[in-house]
């Protein structure tokens, strides 16, 4: 088990290195560099020397030297560098945004499971009935509806009907838990709806499979009620892969939050990424990118390990 974890962690390193190289290069190839943007902004104030600015931001060196310095600082000091825009540490900019994205993701996952499991189970135990068709239509419907559209509707219609608009000012959980949760509820539900589709499909497939197992037949033969058979015998065994697909949604979730955070004005990692990309803040984009990639990789590892924990038949050597 320990060897397995060590091997997996070691395999993460080349992946992460590749991620950083790809992003480091591609962002510098974007048209409209940070220098151009800064020059435009400072145009009214006075002429600045392009060369001097490049030198100041450390952008005048060859790209491999820049990358070497960045990665060297990261490995040796755990330093993600300083933002080209604010001159503050990148880590300092990212840190307050992590809990926002995590909270949104957590609410999304909970809402998603609360919708997906009951509908998926019902759809499976009533296979090929009207209820099943409806359940599957809903599942595929949720995959098909873009989050930015639900988000737009949720912002536009309450504003017209009840003059309600999502709060612009973000309230941290520690400051006012109730207000904070109220703020996250609607974006969380929107995210949950989008996430529930794939999970619902998985729940249905797994239930269908488990319901044909011998032990379920035995349970029926013992004369147990449908409720007991489904809840105690089938659902428990079907849930393991369902929970793990929820984990596979982690990258989708972070991608989805870019849109939802933009619509609901939540200062999470997704929106920060979009802002940094627009401002061509190279170091922030690279830092954020690395943090998100780490989250995804660790989540994937935890999912694989959870298999062994949830299903005692699986062993990693």
């Amino acid at each position, binding site marked *: 088990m320990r060897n397995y974890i060590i091997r997996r962690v070691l395999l993460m390193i080349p992946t992460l290195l590749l991620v950083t190289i790809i992003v480091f290069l*591609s962002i510098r190839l974007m048209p409209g560099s940070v220098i151009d943007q800064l020059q435009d902004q400072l145009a009214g104030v006075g002429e600045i020397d392009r060369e001097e600015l490049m030198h100041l931001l450390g952008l005048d060196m060859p790209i491999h030297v820049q990358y070497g310095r960045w990665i060297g600082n990261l490995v040796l000091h755990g330093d993600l560098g300083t933002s080209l825009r604010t001159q503050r540490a990148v880590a300092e900019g990212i840190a307050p945004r992590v809990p926002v994205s995590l909270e949104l993701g957590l609410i999304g996952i909970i809402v998603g499971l609360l919708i997906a499991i009951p509908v998926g189970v019902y759809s499976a135990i009533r296979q090929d009935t009207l209820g099943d068709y409806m359940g599957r239509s809903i599942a595929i419907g949720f995959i*098909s509806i*873009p989050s930015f559209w639900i988000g737009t509707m949720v912002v536009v219609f309450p504003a017209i009907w009840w003059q309600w608009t999502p709060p612009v000012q973000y309230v941290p959980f520690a400051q006012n838990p109730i207000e904070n949760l109220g703020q996250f509820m609607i974006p969380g539900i929107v995210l949950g709806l989008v996430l529930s589709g794939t999970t619902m499909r998985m729940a249905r497939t797994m239930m269908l499979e488990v319901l044909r197992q011998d032990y379920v037949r035995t349970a029926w033969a013992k004369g147990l009620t449908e409720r007991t058979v489904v809840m105690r015998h089938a659902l428990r065994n079907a849930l393991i892969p369902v929970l793990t697909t929820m984990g596979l949604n982690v990258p*989708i979730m*972070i*991608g989805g939050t870019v849109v939802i955070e933009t619509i609901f004005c939540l200062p999470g990692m997704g929106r920060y990424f979009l802002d940094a990309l627009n401002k061509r803040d190279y170091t922030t984009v690279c830092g954020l990118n690395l943090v998100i990639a780490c989250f*995804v990789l660790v989540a*994937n590892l935890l999912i694989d390990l959870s298999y062994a924990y949830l299903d005692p038949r699986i062993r990693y050597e």
Partner: protein
Amino acid sequence: MANDVKDTIQGTEQEQKRHFELVELPRRLIKEKPLGTIGGVIVLALFITGIFADFLAPYGMNEAFIADRLEPPSAQYVLGTDQLGRDMATRIIYGARTSMIVGVFGSLICLITSTLIGMTSGFIGGKYDLIVQRIVDAVMCFPALLILLTIVAMLGPGLMQVTITIGVVFGISGSRVIRSAAISTKENTYVDAARAIGCSTTRTLIRHILPNILPAIIILTTTRMGGVILAEAALSFLGYGIPPPTPSWGGMLSGAGRQYMYTAPLLAIWPGLILSLVVYGINMLGDALRDLLDPRLRGGIGRFGKAKRKSLRLKNSQELDKC
């Protein structure tokens, strides 16, 4: 000689059977999969609208009637007009063309990319596989939308750039499914036989592996098409996709139009509704095709003791969901 004749007869029989299946598929779809049929009708409608947009649209693509801005639906403007006085119905019909182009060519590029990467990586294996899979990992461990944003920002907005980027990025993550299909096909005796008679790697790949992983490729492509269309819409929504004034359903929900939605909420409904409907249709059709084409998913009750197949199927469906 006799053997040759027998082979030819068998060959034609097989060909006939394959041909028969192709004709059979729509019939089975209608008979067995009511939801898939609805999906098929929606997809057909998208293609017809996209191809014949010029004949179907009541007005020109960017024809603006300044006097009639933000009109509600009427006999003159079936779905109303937007903030520049352009007919919504016309914009949506031309948006269908954009979505169709992105959907078809994006999933085609996705198909080619994932087949090339997946097939070679699975078949050749070894160090090549290890290196290629690390690159695939690097792409997959990052939210697709963020990669797309970065690359499109680099290439600049435009229909072609967006389609190629989405196709390649989705193709890389989709290659996992093709790779696992190629790995399981590789173990067959006929592949060994092909090698034994001296087939080159290319020939083995094209003549022996490719036809046998075709169902996996078809399934992957149909299930990805909806995602491709949604990705374009999301990019356009964030302002990185198809630049205005070309109509795109995602773009119609973003930008300047957003502030007018409070006075004319229908502006927010139509593009999203049609987009969701189309993606819904594609997903339904894809699901039905998957059920009909995948031999592992055939049959209902009474499959016992097929633990290996079951775990394989589970793995495949998980991978499909993942990407």
